[in-house]
């Protein structure tokens, strides 16, 4: 095997390892505990904060503000709470939810590419 082929092989292997680590490796997840009755989530290449912790049995208003023009993010789907909502660009959309049980509830964009999480304690 020539040197260039060895370099390409090593480069590709490093690329594969990096991709796995970057996208699928364990990420440090910061949980934003919501103490007020509302929380703002910015929609831009994902959801920030990505994980919010809500109290059980209390109504919390989640204000989604989409700043990303990507059409993938134009809808948010909180399937555990039976909510699918269109998010107009640069406008807050308030979604009220009252968690009835404890657990982790993943929500996503309409095409299920981007994910956020609601933790109910």
């Amino acid at each position, binding site marked *: 095997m020539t040197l260039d082929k060895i370099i390409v092989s090593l480069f590709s292997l490093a690329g594969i390892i990096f991709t796995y680590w970057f*996208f699928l490796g364990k990420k440090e997840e910061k949980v934003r505990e919501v103490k007020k009755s509302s929380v703002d989530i910015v929609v831009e*290449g994902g959801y920030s904060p990505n994980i919010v912790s809500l109290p059980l049995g209390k109504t919390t208003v989640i204000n989604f503000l989409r700043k990303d023009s990507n059409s993938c993010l134009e809808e948010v789907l909180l399937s555990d709470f039976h909510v*699918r909502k269109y998010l107009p660009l640069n406008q807050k959309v*308030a979604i009220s939810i009252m968690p009835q049980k404890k657990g982790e509830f993943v929500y996503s964009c309409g095409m299920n590419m981007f994910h956020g999480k609601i933790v109910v304690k």
Partner: protein
Amino acid sequence: MTEIKKTFAVKGMHCASCVRVLERALQKIEGVSEANVNLATEKATVIYDSTKVTNKHLASAVAQVGYQAVVDDEMQHKDLEKKEKQKELQVLKKKVAISLFLGALILWGSFPGIMNTAPDLLKNFLVQLLLASVVQFWPGLDFYKATIPALKHRTANMDTLVAIGTTVAYGYSAFITIFPKIPQAIGVDSSPYFDVATIIIGLILLGRYFEAKAKAGTSEAIKKLLGLQAKTARVIRKGKEIDIPLAEVLVGDMIRVRPGEKIPVDGIIEEGNSSIDESMVTGESIPVDKTKGDYVIGATINKTGTFIYQAQKVGNETMLAQIIRLVEEAQGSKAPIQRLADLVSSYFVPVVIMLAFFTFAIWYIFGGESAFLFALLNTVAVLIIACPCAMGLATPTAIMVGTGKGAEQGILIRDAQSLEIAHKINAIIFDKTGTLTKGRPEITEIIPFIPGRKDAQNPQPIFNLSQKGLLQIAASIEKGSEHSLADAIVKKAEEQQLTLNKVENFKAITGFGVSGTIDEEEVLLGNRKLMQRENILIADHLKEIENLEDDGKTVMLLAVEKRLVGLIAVADLLKETAKETVKTLQKKGIETLMITGDNPRTANAIAAKVGIRRVLAEVLPDQKEAEVRKIQSEGKKVAMVGDGINDAPALAAADIGIAMGTGTDVAIEAADITLINKDLQTVVSAIELSKKTMRIIKLNLFWAFAYNIILIPVAMGILYPFFHLLLNPIFASLAMATSSISVVTNSLLLKRYKI
């Protein structure tokens, strides 16, 4: 900052000071720059930063000072959505046109075979670089804008793949155009591939354009339902008729509806009568005649007469609002079948990127003379052909169309899970009263035991009652009863304008009948058990009684002074479509059962009439749930069809609870599927809808998975060793663009199905 202006109605204002209080409250909200309140029109106009202020903030500020803001949230949200999408589509159209036009020019100047006919200008690599840069950084900018923030979150999506793929093709081409000597020195191909980058962007955006157009069709049902609402109502206030916006109608308002007009809100007719077309809400095609005391549904159309009715439910309480809420909730839920697609989606894009690295290495090592070229183009093809969107769209688009289609037919499905389970149902239990029958018992026979008939106890009958005489006594004694059978008897007597006798010592004997005294003679009216208890002989008429019971009728025996004088047979007539519905379900291999509190003889007779072979008779209301569980324990997927109010526990216990002929809160809460109309055929329609939706979902998922499983290896070049076939990245982008469109279009086919 995005400033918008909104005008909304405010209820409860009565003086100029209210205006000041409201304006101050609204101006206090952070993000509101201006607030004006008009007492005459009872409206507030607010200019605010939509990134900071929501309708909820406005409504809450108004509520805090004691008024009510009528912010037409849903309709405005939908209008906004429509406008934004139209705007996005216009921009997208422009980008598609530019990319494909410039891409075609580059292709003309670079593609072997046709480049000879192109002007020299287009063959110039620097000109191609210029044209490709326009596409890469204007229409193609969307892919970068989506990729960069996603990478910050360490996530990737389809845009990431397109951004990487086109950047590789464009970047390599730009490099060798600017530094042509470097590739020549290292012995790699020195032809640029600007056409690949630009046409991929053009075709993917074209696919996205058609996909967005098709996707708009999947959520049409909600818009249609919202569009059913009347805009105004003609209310009578202080003796005057005035037209007011729908949002301002209050409970208790008297509303006039003229022929051809939409009924604004739900209420009860106080004056007049008419024929009303309720098809848009209940799915029932035949107009319903309504008169004083009848309930009318908002958004239905008044056909012939004029009437005045009192508003009972307004705003979010109306039946239409409940239907919209239910459909929205169903569309926001996830079907269990989607789980696999969800799992695959979460790993998909990173795995494709890893495969792209692998493809590059393999082709570079084993690609022979043109190894670099093969490695480059196949890597781009792998990145471009992968389509996670088709997997993401496969289930939700079908659920959205399916639940919307159901709502149009008066079938309200609680969530995607219910829609999925409904197609597995293999046993349906029908409640008898009000479900298989009309729920309105009617008298079918009045038989006085005529004089001369042999009576073992008294060979010389002392009574000589006519049918009218018998009905008169029965109605007199039943007047004080609340039983539904009593209603039928009293109603019949009223129809015949009979004068009722005075009854003394009235007594209702639960489970038996009633007793009392008329003209100092003891009268008993009830079932056979009552006669046995009072030692009244019925043996001579037993055959007659049994014949009637065998015919599915409830027999009520009348005795005066301890002697049987006649009988009244009452039947709850079967719904016209009952027999046909049962037959259709049985043909589909679904077992049909009937559950009732009736005695087995009557129950079996009714069941036989509709063709039901398995009967659960003499079941008290609180035992229905246990009966449902018994059938489930036989390994069956059970649907229970009932009225949703009395049967709530049984509906909840069944795999699928179907509430029929009602749109009440209780029914909707207890049921997985609510059928607004009373036509039994809708049960078949609901199951058919579920089957068809599931068929579409399975086809979509199969297509989405098969597409990726087959075409990604093809793009990697798996066919090359056998057939010398490679996938051009341009064809890869064409395939990718059509794959999501095909999934959405397939879901839209549900709209065409007749259910």
